[in-house]
């Protein structure tokens, strides 16, 4: 009797497995991906740059300043602040902007770069720190996740490393 019940359950399970297999491309893939998409997850700030702090409007483009990204205990990335210039198509051929990163009304860094004529050409730029919290960068492209001046799509992404000791306080 027990073996018969188990057998029935087994074949029922096998049938359901086949049903699940049929449902995979039509229902399940979309269902599970929706679940993940709405699970409140976010990409690590090392890759995404963190959350937006403020946006500054300039003539024809805007500068988006992000919150500082602090590494966790054993994370190997330096602390940094991301700045995005967008849209890249509207930027002047030479950009040199002083930007207030911490919202205290005083400029903290000067970002300078020349837009190459070819959008696929590598971009390099300079970041001059105007206060000790930030670290200057010279002729930098995509050195690391905390030090870069790169073009991604229609944006220019700049990441300025923070002085670790001052950033910790």
């Amino acid at each position, binding site marked *: 009797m027990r073996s018969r019940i188990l057998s029935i359950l087994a074949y029922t399970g096998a049938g359901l497995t086949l049903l699940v*297999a049929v449902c995979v491309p039509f229902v399940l893939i979309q269902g599970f*991906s929706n679940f993940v998409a709405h699970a409140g997850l976010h990409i*690590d700030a090392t890759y995404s740059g963190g959350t937006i702090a403020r946006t500054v409007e300039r003539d024809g483009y805007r500068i988006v300043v992000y919150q500082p990204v602090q590494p966790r205990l054993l994370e190997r990335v330096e602390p940094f602040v991301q700045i995005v210039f967008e849209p890249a198509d509207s930027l002047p051929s030479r950009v040199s902007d002083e930007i207030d990163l911490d919202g205290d009304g005083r400029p903290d860094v000067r970002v300078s770069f020349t837009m190459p004529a070819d959008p696929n050409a590598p971009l390099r730029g300079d970041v001059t720190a105007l206060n000790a919290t930030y670290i200057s960068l010279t002729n930098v492209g995509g*050195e690391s*996740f905390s030090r870069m001046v790169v073009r991604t*799509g229609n944006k220019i*992404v700049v990441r300025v490393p923070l002085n670790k000791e001052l950033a910790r306080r």
Partner: protein
Amino acid sequence: MASRSPALARPPAFRGVGRSILLTLPIALWSLLMFMPSFQRAGRDQHIGALLVILLMTTLFFLMMRTGETYRWRRIFFVALGFLFPVGFIAALIAERGTMSIPISRMVSGDTPFCFMVTPSIILPAAFARTIIFPGSILPSAEHPHSIAMMIGVWFAMTLVLGKAWCSYACFFGGIEEGFAAFAKRRRLHRFVTKYGSILRLIPWAILVFVVLASAALFEPVYCMWLCPFKTVTEFPAVRNLETAIQFGVFVALFVGLVVVLPLLTKKRTQCGFFCPFGAFQSIFNKINLFEIRFNREKCVDCTLCQTSCPTAALSKESIRDGKTLLNCMKCGACVDVCKKDAAVWHLKGTAVAVKPERARLLFLYGAWALATMFGGSILANSVATMVHWLPWK
């Protein structure tokens, strides 16, 4: 008239042609259904790719039904998938950006396609910090079709059906080493593998634990950044400093060693069986999967042919004595096909062992082959279309 000698006599077919065709019909219809969109909207290259894949998958399934064998027909599909996936993937990369390397700008813009092998690494940070430690995009979009949510959805849905059989019917990397293992004529290092198999089998688990915990501690996908041999045939972080140069060296060394050389020497899937942490992770799902391979102890003569033929050393003397495979069994069917005494059989958990094993095999194969057609088949069709597109005589 003299009869043919037994050695030359054609072995009797397992099943008649008519019955085999009948059993193949659902797969043929499923294949048409899966590739209908390709015929409706895509170009001629895509039509050719889709048609060839429909023919391939249907023919292979027919041969599985006709001969009663699983392993060698599945292997044809699997090796084709393993070798052709990089073709389509690399071609797309070269067309898009002219290089296989991923510049850092792509990583910060969320353009890195998510690979299922990252899944174990992201679990702990996602659970504790709601953070995905991968430079991709969570939501699918026109720019990011291979989003993280979509790929996790694909993986989980298919794993519910396949369990560890993912490694035999879905993984688009495993076919590379299966191809090299099949290419080798002699089985070298056999004694070493048999003697140290119990230790070698634990290595993927150790790497899994290490990768999961190191990724959680460092908040970076350690396996992707340091240990994935298949970066060599897909894409890898651009070499921009000593660290990335070392990473690239490790990828190449692991690929050459584990995916090419060792399979040629051992005729085993050494990367899959003795290294891959994702394979160890998938083994966990074997516990809830209904299908398995079992051994009829009354028929078994302990010839150990099954143990020798197993591509991932998922059989030991103790496990065969207990009538079971080990947890890392991929359900490829090699042991069942090679067993001369029909002691190794497909089994549906909850039913009696070796009673109607063909029924268990059919129930398993329909699900597995349907998903193989949907997933691997679409990758194959895309790769074939790419190759057709680049034909010089077009």
